């Protein structure tokens, strides 16, 4: 454990020990949010085959939110396809809204939503 990451506990803190999930979730601009079984080493964008993006989804990018809170943007179109990104148990894929439609409203909406999702404790929505 890195000492710098080892914070002292303060009054009112709650320790949350999630069960190790065996699934990943796809949320955002999808027909319906999905919870899919984790397939080790499966590339993040391949999960979209099992959870179809909706008509307002961005065609180029997805956000990959790993359970430790790290966020990565992955190219999913032919012009920007990057290295494969395997997921960890409990990871989340946020399918962003189409950027072009957002410019007038809130430029950074997708970025901010992904950042918000990354702050959510693991297993929260599954109930415990």
């Amino acid at each position, binding site marked *: 454990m890195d*000492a*710098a990451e*080892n*914070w*002292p506990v303060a009054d009112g803190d709650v320790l949350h020990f999630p069960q190790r999930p065996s699934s990943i979730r796809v949320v955002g601009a999808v027909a319906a949010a999905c919870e899919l079984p984790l397939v080790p080493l499966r590339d993040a964008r391949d999960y979209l085959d099992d959870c179809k993006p909706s008509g307002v989804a961005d*065609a*180029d990018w997805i956000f990959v939110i790993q359970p430790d809170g790290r966020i990565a943007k992955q190219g999913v*179109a*032919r*012009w*920007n*396809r990057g*290295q494969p990104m395997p997921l960890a148990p409990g990871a989340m894929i946020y399918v962003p809204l189409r950027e072009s439609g957002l410019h007038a409203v809130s430029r950074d909406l997708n970025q901010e939503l992904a950042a918000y999702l990354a702050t959510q404790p693991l297993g929260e929505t599954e109930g415990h």
Partner: protein
Amino acid sequence: MGTRTRRPSAAATAPRRRIRLRCGCLLPLVGGLLMPVAHADNAPSQSDFGGAGLWQTPSARMADDGEAALTASHVEPYDRYNVSLQPLPWLEGIFRYTAVSNRMYGPQSLSGNQSYKDKSIDVKLRLWTESHYLPDFSVGARDIGGTGLFSGEYVVMNKRFGAFDASLGMGWGYVGGRGDIKNPLSVISDKFDLRPGGQSGTGKFSSNRYFRGPAAVFGGVSYQTPWHWLVLKAEYDGNNYRHEPKNNNQRQDSPFNFGAVFRPNRNVDLSVALERGNTVMFGLTLHTNLARSAGPAKLLDPAAPKRNALSASATPEQVDWASVARTLRDNAGIQVSSITRRGSELIVKGEQKDYFYSAKGVGRAARVLDNALGPGIDWFTVVSQQQGLSATETSINRQRFGQLLEHDISLRDFRQSVEQNAPASRREELLYRGPLKRVDQSFALAYAQNLGGPDAFLLYQIAAVYSIDFYFTRNVWWSGLASVDLFDNYDKFKYDAPSELPRVRTDVRKYITSSTVTMPIFQLTGTRQLGQDLYGMAYGGMLESMFGGVGGEVLYRPFGERWAIGSNINWVKQRGYDQDFSFRSYKVVTGHVTGYFNLGYKDVLVALSAGRYLAGDWGATLDVSREFRNGVRMGAYATKTNVSAQQFGEGSFDKGIYVSIPFDLILPRSTRTRATFVWDPLIRDGGAMLNRRYSLYSITDDRDLDNFNGNLEKIVE
């Protein structure tokens, strides 16, 4: 030779002691290039001409910013050695030596059997970034205003389709040498029909040729195979080799060039291709991303002081300050000039001698003071000084710093307990005054070289250099530099460039070959803080290897602002070739007004100087550079004066590119020294600046708060 060119900006003029190598120092850079980088980052393979591209043709692609590459390629009859730099995500710069192996450089008596050499600088700009439907779109020029042998311009776009990256472009000049289509720009004006000057090979007529003359289409595809170490590339060449310079046309059996790039690791690419349908090309590229280098672990630094388990109880009056000052020098790198107290704040003033990252020095100073002092002191302040001038004071809260070291608070929380201010004189209680260190001397071996001249491809010199600064006060000192030539091959150095101007720089050969023992510097310098934000400096003596005289500089650099303005004026006389105390008859008043603007965009610094140059010519120098967070700086400069391109001679105007690398990124010990590599094609008399030993902008470098704030995490190291 190291002292001959000096950039006007803070960039290359160098704070601190600095090793400067001139002209295509290919080998030393390799050391920096082999630093390990563990990133799956974007570094497209290079063309034969350096820079992202296919074989003969460029692509619209850019590497990640910070990328630096050395590419050597051989395709009969050309050998090309390219240095490519990517200072910004949308800007690529290349310096190139081309050797034409079947043409002689000059008469046998001068050049022996040396093949013809050509030097050039390229620029490529990305105007549009690829998106779902639109391609990357870039515009570029090869050999901007150089000798013009291979000069050409192009526009090119790239679109990726999965593993395939397709490019399509149009070239003018050498890039579009086939010239089989009428210049589409002729719609605008008839003058685009003809490319003037042709291949005169002298650069005298190379202005206003951009995008003129007939054009040709080029393009191709790069395929990333499933094996990451193998890339296949094929292209349709824009050149038919029927208008090669130096009457050197080549047979072309096919306009299609194709081959493979092998990428065994992040730093090495090997290429082999078949070009012109009949000639094999071999290429080698060494590359790395300098901006991402963090440098090796600092194993040779003293360990940071352990925090005392029992807190000390000494009051500031009881502390043995002489001993603390010694520890501050040894462990925090600070040569202390004074230690004072203001209420509950303890202030250390001095010069940082060791740590490139000022946060590291401040953190260590705080640890030393924390161990020495009892309660009652809540803030530690370090005032950074150089050459008797104070730039910035940095204060940190003692209690919060302790919490940071114990990992009780995050760096982000700690940041709120750090203050930076302009040093101001206030009532302070003096606790300790450090003795003046009168003599600062060093001895070094210096290597200087000149690549690509007509005498020999490599002219080199190894000299022993002794440097001494004697301080009369903290603000007044004398500097001396003596150099003894140990080895060189200057017996081959016979060529003096022609000049239509006073020979202020082109006599370089005489300066470096006339005497074995030289005295490049013998000068007295004084500095003065004229106001909180106003600095002054005056100097006199032998100011550089070719000029001596008197001069002065003032700089207004408001604290917390991203701009500064300064001015210098000098009355100088040309020195004797032996670099002793003698003078020649030429004298001139030279000086510049310089504005420095840190754009706040990716730490880009623009320095614009206007004034009178050594040959008496009037003009301006623009120097644009970017400093990455780790201190690596990449930049370019150009000077244009009221000398016509014809009078200026080969090259049309003075220009160059440079990269400056902190040795801290290479050595296992902290150091403030830098290696600066400058690639400027030619030494000419027009647009030559006096090479001043000190510049106020560099001395007050700590006014740039980005180094501290961008590397605040080093405060705990």
